[in-house]
């Protein structure tokens, strides 16, 4: 102590931290701010870790279209602990978006965006947008097939912007087509532009937190009155509040420690993400998928009716950001407690249910044809046992003409179209022929691609599909009379007599 104290004093005499940072650190916060208030600090802690792991990755990563993939593989397999740094960075990004989303929902449900914290909320919305931008640009820096085609998808969206779309695409790509400049641009965005904006915005966000205070835990029935709120808040927080440091900071530190421990575990157990396949555009046997946070968007784009698409792709993000920014002005006073704000609660529930179900659907992706189902999946034995040669020929047609890429048999195959297990209970043979030849209902017309004999065979096969076979297999007996199960055609001597 005798040695350390003079050193501290020496620095303190020059920095004067007791007078500048001191009051900030120990500023009074409401005593009701408990565990719901830790998520902002957790997001900040994760962001600082992202900067550190990001700098470490930049020591090795090469932002060149030709060599980025090789440098990622080098990080994974050759660089000492390179895989762990990559894992920390990707899991850190997932956790950061997760903590930020919880923080935002908490702020929304606690009415913290209302007077006088409108600007705190608006800066927070900008921070959220920037963080999602980090997510997308970061996925592109993981220069693999998903990144290359993800960029292609992003540009196809950008190309739909009225008037300036084509120019915008070339501007973002840094040239007329995806290549070296595109990766360099996304590198500059991910490493300089967006993090710089984030740091500046975080500064403003924290300044506002100090200047406008953090929200007291709302009480039902206590309304925000713009005329008296600030005065009341100051009085209450000084009378009954607690200092941020060490009281609230302790809680924040515990939460940050826990989330960092979770991050360490995730990184250790699950490792880095990808890179998944060399981004050679000639390798077209790929099915690009976005990272977790954009899966719901991927689902929406498959499920929307085409006439809404361009509006949703371009208009909806602008509209959503506009509503979020306008929110404190639309609802700046009044009730804060969620129990008295049913529409706000309903909105959050609806948002969670939609995002959850869309993400679930995106992982199932029933709209995507299973590109190798036709050649890789076996025809269930029960569907070919005891069938006539014509019907067997039809079973071959179902495989060879890629029908199974979209139609499942026994649950396996694509789910774009209806499963064929019980198609004969829904359509008669004429309807099957018409559907196969003319298509319709989102099925291509096969008229030009099937010979009459193939059409006849596939119809004969599909007419045996009563949805019974798998049931019978499970039950161990058959109740379906079937002519083809007999070894020889039935012989009726009495009919011969009649002739």
């Amino acid at each position, binding site marked *: 102590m005798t040695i350390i104290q003079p050193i501290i004093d020496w620095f303190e005499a020059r920095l004067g931290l007791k007078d500048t940072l001191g009051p900030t650190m120990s500023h009074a916060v409401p005593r009701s701010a408990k565990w719901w208030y830790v998520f902002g600090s957790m997001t900040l802690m994760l962001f600082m870790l992202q900067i550190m792991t990001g700098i470490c990755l930049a020591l090795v990563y090469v932002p060149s279209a*030709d060599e980025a993939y090789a440098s990622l593989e080098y990080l994974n397999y050759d660089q000492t602990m390179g895989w762990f740094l990559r894992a920390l960075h990707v899991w850190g990004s997932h956790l950061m978006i997760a903590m930020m989303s919880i923080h935002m929902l908490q702020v929304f449900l606690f009415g913290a965006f209302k007077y006088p914290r409108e600007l705190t909320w608006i800066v927070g919305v900008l921070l959220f947008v920037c963080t999602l931008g980090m997510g997308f640009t970061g996925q592109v820096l993981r220069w693999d097939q998903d990144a290359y*085609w993800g960029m292609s998808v992003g540009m196809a969206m950008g190309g739909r912007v009225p008037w*300036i*779309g084509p120019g*915008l695409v070339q501007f973002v790509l840094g040239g*007329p087509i995806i290549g070296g400049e595109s990766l360099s641009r996304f590198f500059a965005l991910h490493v300089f532009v967006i993090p710089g904006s984030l740091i500046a915005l975080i500064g403003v966000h924290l300044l506002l937190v100090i200047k406008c205070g953090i929200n007291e835990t709302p009480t039902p029935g206590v309304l925000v009155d713009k005329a008296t709120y600030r005065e009341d808040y100051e009085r209450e927080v000084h009378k009954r509040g607690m200092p941020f440091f060490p009281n609230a900071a302790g809680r924040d530190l515990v939460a940050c420690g826990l989330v960092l421990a979770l991050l360490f575990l995730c990184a250790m157990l699950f490792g880095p993400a990808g890179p998944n396949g060399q981004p050679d555009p000639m390798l077209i046997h790929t099915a690009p998928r976005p990272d977790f946070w954009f899966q719901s968007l991927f689902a929406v784009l498959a499920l929307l009716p085409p006439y809404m698409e361009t509006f949703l792709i371009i208009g909806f993000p602008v509209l959503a950001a506009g509503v979020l920014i306008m929110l404190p002005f639309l609802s700046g006073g009044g009730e804060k407690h969620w129990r008295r704000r049913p529409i706000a609660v309903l909105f959050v529930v609806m948002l969670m249910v939609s995002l959850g179900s869309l993400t679930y659907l995106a992982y199932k992706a029933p709209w995507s044809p299973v590109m190798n189902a036709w050649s890789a999946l076996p025809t269930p034995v029960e569907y070919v046992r005891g069938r006539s040669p014509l019907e067997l020929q039809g079973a071959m047609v179902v495989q060879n003409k890629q029908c199974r890429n979209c139609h499942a048999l026994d649950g396996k195959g694509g789910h774009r179209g209806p499963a064929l297990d019980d198609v004969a209970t829904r359509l008669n043979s004429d309807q099957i022929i018409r559907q196969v030849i003319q298509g319709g209902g989102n099925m291509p017309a096969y008229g030009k691609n099937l010979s009459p004999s193939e059409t006849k065979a596939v119809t004969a096969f599909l007419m045996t599909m009563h949805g019974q076979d798998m049931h019978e297999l499970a039950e161990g007996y058959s109740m379906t009379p079937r002519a083809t199960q007999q070894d020889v055609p039935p012989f009726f001597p009495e009919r011969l007599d009649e002739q």
Partner: protein
Amino acid sequence: MPEQFDYRSAPDPAMLGPGPTPEPSRRGFLFWLGAGINAIVAVLIAIPVVGYIFSSWKQGGSQKWVSLGEVKDFPEDQTRLGKYRNPFTTPWDGYTANTPCWVRRQKGETFTVFAINCTHLGCPVRWFPESSLFMCPCHGGVYYADGSHAAGPPPRGLYPYEMRIRNGNLEIKAGRLPTLQQTP
């Protein structure tokens, strides 16, 4: 012994009272002169910087004739994966400058060349010769052999390239990522 140095004891200019300050008009002139010089220099610097950043902003253009190989390499009545090197390439593009396309040869010298990109959202479509269909792995877009829309969300048929035959070589006009608004 800690040094006694306190920034608070430094003299506050406001406490010194009115000193021999320059005339207000002269101070104002210096401020506006400084602001003016900075504004002019800012514009001088900003114009080239903006030009640098936005140099890739082009509404159209950026197309060149490239060869896909000899006509005889493409069998009649078949659709094959073609490959060309992006004409606007940099040395560090590497394999990413290799661009795929679908080459359909009908009879003789009748060709149709399609961009690989689905017209819905740009994923690479795959050709299935058995059913004569292009299928997209992303959202389930399907196209017929002639590129026309068959099923799924795409708003139009596949993007065709402009093509010509020179000295027995099949050539297409390419080099630009095809998007919905600027492709025939």
